[in-house]
């Protein structure tokens, strides 16, 4: 409706306003429970930026979120709601660790890339199943991926208990040469778990940007997402594009899991629930409006909230539960950005009227 420039401005305004409103609501909630919101937010900022260690942990948390968000956005662009990213993350995590601990004698230059690829392939395959069913049997990818999430969770737990270990909850650590961690990164970040994952994520932002905007594959994925009929008319293989977009989506999500397995934890353990990282990744993609640059900022924001939030109980006495409510209210506003868009449009109209009368 508006011209291009104005449209872009509104687009950036919406997520920014969502965050601000979320912070305000969070403050009100803290006040309501009798805590000092200023102290609370200060503790959060300190917990995210207060020392090299905190910054390192914050960036460490953001790394997988970025690739997972990118993964979700690729499927989303093709018109699919890949709710299964969490399961794809988990399988990526599992398979990378599995390969790494299975071949402890391999040299790093072989073991590391193969472990990474194993994780990526696992996520890609898992999402590919949903894509295949969607393309050939028109099943809803939402339902299929939700079911695949459960399958992923229980399969992982079974394998960890019965195959990777002898009834233990946690696998042995991966061999040193398969790790994504680097001494120099740990050293400059005060011994945090920051690892090479952050660089992989930053590179992939650019890669996905190029893929979607500058390649024929990206052009096709976008076309299919916006209008399947016209895409078929233009001779695109819509089935192949559906599957491919899901495979790419799952591969990126799996890579997020790899960063957990080979970077953050260097092992895998029995999971009580789907990794929260998966759902956070979806929120990141939605907040970032499915644009690679937006996803970068959204992932950083989430990392600040989550990692900074862990310092709030100690730093300001705000209990964890309230911290979670504050974070949830910010996410709520992010999800409710339609509402914000509505009010911005209304204001714009009101302004036009004023301008027009003169």
């Amino acid at each position, binding site marked *: 409706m508006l*011209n291009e420039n104005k449209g872009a401005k509104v687009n950036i305004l919406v997520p920014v306003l969502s965050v601000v409103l979320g912070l305000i609501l969070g403050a009100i909630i803290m006040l309501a429970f009798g805590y000092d919101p200023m102290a609370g937010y200060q503790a959060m900022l300190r917990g995210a930026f207060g020392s090299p260690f905190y910054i390192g942990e914050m960036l460490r948390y953001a790394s997988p979120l970025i690739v997972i968000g990118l993964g979700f956005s690729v499927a989303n662009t093709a018109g699919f709601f890949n709710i299964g990213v969490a399961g794809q993350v988990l399988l990526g995590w599992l398979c990378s660790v599995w390969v790494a601990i299975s071949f402890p004698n391999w040299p790093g230059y072989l073991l590391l890339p193969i472990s990474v690829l194993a994780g990526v392939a696992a996520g890609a395959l898992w999402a590919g199943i949903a894509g295949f069913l969607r393309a050939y049997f028109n099943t809803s990818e939402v339902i299929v991926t939700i079911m695949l999430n459960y399958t992923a969770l229980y399969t992982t737990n079974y394998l960890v208990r019965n195959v990777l270990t002898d009834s233990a909850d946690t696998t042995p650590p991966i061999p040193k040469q398969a790790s994504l961690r680097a001494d120099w990164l740990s050293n400059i970040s005060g011994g945090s778990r920051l690892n090479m994952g952050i660089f992989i994520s930053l590179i992939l932002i650019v890669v996905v940007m190029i893929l979607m905007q500058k390649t*024929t594959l990206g052009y096709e994925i976008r*076309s299919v997402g916006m209008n399947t*009929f016209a895409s078929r008319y233009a*001779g695109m293989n819509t089935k192949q594009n559906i599957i491919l977009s899901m495979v790419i989506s799952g591969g990126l999500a799996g890579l997020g899991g790899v960063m957990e397995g080979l970077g953050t934890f260097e092992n895998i353990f029995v999971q009580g629930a789907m990794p929260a990282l998966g759902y956070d990744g979806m929120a990141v993609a939605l907040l970032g409006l499915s644009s690679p640059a937006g996803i970068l900022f959204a992932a950083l924001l989430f990392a600040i909230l989550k990692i900074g939030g862990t310092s709030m109980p100690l730093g300001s006495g705000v209990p964890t539960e309230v911290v979670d409510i504050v974070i949830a209210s910010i996410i709520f506003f992010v999800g409710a950005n339609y509402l914000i868009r509505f009010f911005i449009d209304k204001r714009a109209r009101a302004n036009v009227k004023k301008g*027009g009368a003169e």
Partner: protein
Amino acid sequence: MPETNYVIEMLGITKQFGDFKANDNINLKVKKGEIHALLGENGAGKSTLMNILSGLLEPTSGEIRVNGEKVDISSPGVADKLGIGMVHQHFMLVDKFTVTENIILGSEKTKAGFLDKKEAQKEIKALSERYGLFVDPTARVEAISVGMQQRVEILKTLYRGTDILILDEPTAVLTPQEITELMEIMHSLTKEGKSIIIITHKLEEIKQVADQCTVIRRGQSIDTVEVAETSSQQLADMMVGRSVTFKVPKEEAQPKETVLSIQDLTVKESRGLEAVKHFNLDIHAGEIVGIAGVDGNGQSELIQAITGLTKVESGTITLNSKNITNLPPRKITEAGVGHIPEDRQKYGLILPMTLYENISLQEYYKEPFSKNGILNGNAMKKNARKLIDEFDVRTQNEYNTASSLSGGNQQKAIIAREVSRDPDLLIAAQPTRGLDVGAIEYIHKRLIEHRDHGKAVLLMSFELDEIMNVSDRIVVMFEGEIAGIVDPKDVTQQELGLLMAGSSVEKAKAMADQDGGKESANVK
């Protein structure tokens, strides 16, 4: 209330999109009980002006009065309250809903918190009887014809108590019979004191129904004239700003080798019934074959089958002696077929994408538009700029989304894309639907030029004028079969109409002679 003759006065309306003025100081005055036509080239700003009146767009400046009173139509809701209702150029119905559900959507009546569909259905029935707008209130919208969908749109506005009805190109999608019915409906509405603003590119329709006509050119109102005192030619010239020919002159066709050969073709439609039955047809290089017929007699399925969008049940289709039966669409395109699809928004364009991306839709994967899977944006844009220029697509630049173009300019963009590839067989389905007379003249010229380059053209149209003027041979389809193949030079519109209604060539000729072309099978 101030005394006035006018129900609607739009004074000095200007609407700007960025730097571009879509409406530039337009004046429009409509009297109570009149049918007022709005005429203008594609992209002249007609839809924009009406979107302002119906509250979808806010004018940059200008004043609107309803019954003499200054109003501020800030939303469609306000327009509703003022009794202004609009039926859009592209319908806004929910496919999966029933007719009743669509009509009451947004103004549902409830009983104890539950939808009161019975009551609504009664009301809709009363309305449709009163104005002769017959529809099946329980049918799903996706299952009814376009003409029926339009009635639903009109009923939707009447259900909300509309006094001023805006119809944006209502006839573009209708068959001749449906158009006649629509005109009757319009008259019954104005008899009840309602006013109608109608946008149409068809001058004879304006001559038939309208009392007044306001002409708009490039965003400015040129004049408002009394329709009875103005000829079609005058209207056309006023609108385009130069003299227009309605019938493009052309030489005798020089048919050469066979380009497309269809043998014993049978195609089923989505419900599994045979839409095309044992169909045979050859199309030669250097000729334009027109397919005439009432909508729904298998024309769409025939074209979808040739272009690979629908499965062929049995029979063969060969192009330049190559069997293309049931090949994927891209293989068929590459074999030398260009296709201007009947439904431009569903098949022809990806609306949220930019114009240059849309213009590259058939060739993006080939050099120079891409190499090794990497797109060459500059080559795409350059080609788009060239075609925008050549085909006079009215847009600010190639970065505009296809959805921001006016309906007629969307169509021109598709035609540019398909014709410029210089296909051996150009299939044009309803190519001038929604185009202004100037643009139609241009498109017809291009089709004839394409023929004269030694290519084959298959033209499908519901417009008898178009079929008669442009084709070298007319194939009339009835219930999936060929009712007759005739030469446009020795057939009258009446005879064509009878053929379309299912009679044989001999019978049609005899009947047309008999009643001297009075009333012939519902064809105008």
